[in-house]
């Protein structure tokens, strides 16, 4: 019988340790990909045409003359200091590059997530409420299509139809060419920056550029969110408290939204956090189609200059964001669900 605060502290400590081990494993994975998989890691960084001096410098920088475990220790220490290596295509530190490209990805995927939640949750609820009736079938098929469609292809088709044929939205890029660089960079998110500067022309131009990629990402996450909402809601609606609420005369809306959805909200938080991570993946392909200046495009263009530091840095960053999203959903779960608080005691 230990005291409650002590248990809380040990609980948090074990949990932090788990996260730390996962992050260390992540570093081990990128280390493995960058240093051990390539036949010559130096060549994969500097490219075939490097001068011998450059080759030797990188060879020593990587510490390839040292034993592997020591190389790994140094790699981890460097990462902890925020040193992700230097990008050979932009010749800037990879971390600086990532920081400058990340906000654009964050902005796009956040808006995509908002769209996905705003449409996906009601669709999932409707699907569960009319279980095995036509709304359920329609929504399930819409979701299945979202699962099956190659997102980069949908982007191309979208550009062809809505930009080229119908001219409803603007084409690739974040802004029209003559607006680029007009607004001062504050957050790196173009909507916020242009609104802060009071440049509403630019704001609406950015909206028009963002509509298509954000809708596509929204659809991509909608497929997952609506399916998960459906299964969680089906589970809740079959519980006895729903019957009780109905017997007490609560309205159908009150039963479904006020009772069942409220209870479903807790697992849904996890689902939404995870789909946010999935959006980061979808944005890699979407960004290359829409020339969106984010992490995905950065990784894509680094691949072509065989810039492994940049590719692995981007991968590591997305992995870290993923781990933190998982952590966040864990924490939210514990905060929101009184039962898991009980269990933790």
């Amino acid at each position, binding site marked *: 019988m230990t005291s409650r605060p002590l248990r809380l502290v040990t609980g948090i400590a074990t949990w932090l340790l788990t996260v730390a081990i996962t992050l260390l494993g992540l570093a081990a994975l990128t280390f493995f*990909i960058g240093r051990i998989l390539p036949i010559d890691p130096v060549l994969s960084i500097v490219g075939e045409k490097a001068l011998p001096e450059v080759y030797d410098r990188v060879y020593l920088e990587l510490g390839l003359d040292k034993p592997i475990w020591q190389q790994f220790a140094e790699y981890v220490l460097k990462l902890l200091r925020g040193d992700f290596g230097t990008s050979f295509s932009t010749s800037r530190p990879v971390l600086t590059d990532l920081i400058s490209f990340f906000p654009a990805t964050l902005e796009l995927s956040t808006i995509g997530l908002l769209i996905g939640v705003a449409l996906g949750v009601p669709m999932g609820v409707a699907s569960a409420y009319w279980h095995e009736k036509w709304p359920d079938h329609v929504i399930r098929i819409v979701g299945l299509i979202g699962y099956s469609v190659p997102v980069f292809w949908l982007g191309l088709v979208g550009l062809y139809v809505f930009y080229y044929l119908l001219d409803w939205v603007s084409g690739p890029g974040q802004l029209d060419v003559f607006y680029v660089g007009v607004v001062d960079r504050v957050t790196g998110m173009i909507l916020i920056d242009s609104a802060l500067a009071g440049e509403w022309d630019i704001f609406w131009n950015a909206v028009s550029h963002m509509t298509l990629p954000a809708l596509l990402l929204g659809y991509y996450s909608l497929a997952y969110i609506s399916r998960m909402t459906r299964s969680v809601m089906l589970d809740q609606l079959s519980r006895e408290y729903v019957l009780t609420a109905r017997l007490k005369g609560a309205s159908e809306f009150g039963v479904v939204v006020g009772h069942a959805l409220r209870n479903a909200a807790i697992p849904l938080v996890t689902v939404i956090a995870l789909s946010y991570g999935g959006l980061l993946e979808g944005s890699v392909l979407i960004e290359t189609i829409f020339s969106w200046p984010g992490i995905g495009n950065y990784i894509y263009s680094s691949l072509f200059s065989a810039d492994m530091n940049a590719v692995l840095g981007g991968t590591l960053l997305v992995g870290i964001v993923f781990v933190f999203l998982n952590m966040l959903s864990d924490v939210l779960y514990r905060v929101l669900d009184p039962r898991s608080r009980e269990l933790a005691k």
Partner: protein
Amino acid sequence: MSLDTSLDSKHALRAARLTELRRFARRFLRNPLGVLGLVIVLLLLFTAAFAPLLATHDPYLPTLAARLSAPSAEYWFGADELGRDIYSRLVYGSRLTLLIVGLVIVTSAPIGLVIGAISGTAGGWVDAIFMRITDVFLSIPKLLLALAFVAALGPGIFNAALAITLTAWPPYARLARAEALVIRNADFVNAIRLAGASEARIVFFHIIPMCLSSVIVRMTFDMAGIILTAAGLGFIGLGAQPPLPEWGAMISTGRKFIFDQWWVATIPGAAIFIVSLGFNLLGDALRDLLDPHLRQRN
């Protein structure tokens, strides 16, 4: 006498299995979307098997006069930037799609199953280490991890398949581990253990077979995901290399002509979409039939 009863019971068993199979088929046929999925998958297999008979042109032979020509009686889906018939390339591309999916499935599912089953049965530090490794792999989006792997290994269809395998095994490990945790102390497993079976025998002959129905469902869904990841890698230029008619790579070359010759990029994409939809529909139907948890709920 004893021989006869065992023969009888064998007959009875076979008859029972046949009835079970028939019942399964009847329930499956009641799901029109599942049937549609099955038809799409069978069509893919058929196309891949009889590609040379179905193709109307040589998929590799450039005909510069026909460069980027629109869909017509001669070129059903048009021709690409080298004047190669897109329809014939699609037909041959189905082989590459199946090759990648096959390679990934036959490697990732067994690896995941063995790791998960050992992890769940052994418990303790073995379990802790294996599950940490699984978590690390699950903590990076699949496409990105595959992309980093291929970037290090070099592009190509086999490296792409290898990279996708490395990202595809963890869900199987999770699944097998969960199953193993439930049954490692079940009475029948303890009985086998008392009868002197080794832990390896328990893992391979009793725990892994128990996971198979969930694995089949998971695999069908996974195939759709693998097709999409492979197409994504091909699109980025890390999958099959030219002149191979891989569907993702075909979209990537057609991308330059999207506004003027829309068919070059959109038609291969439609093929990817239909095939992955087919696997998803089939997976959905199989899950409804095979998943014991769902069966109880309905």
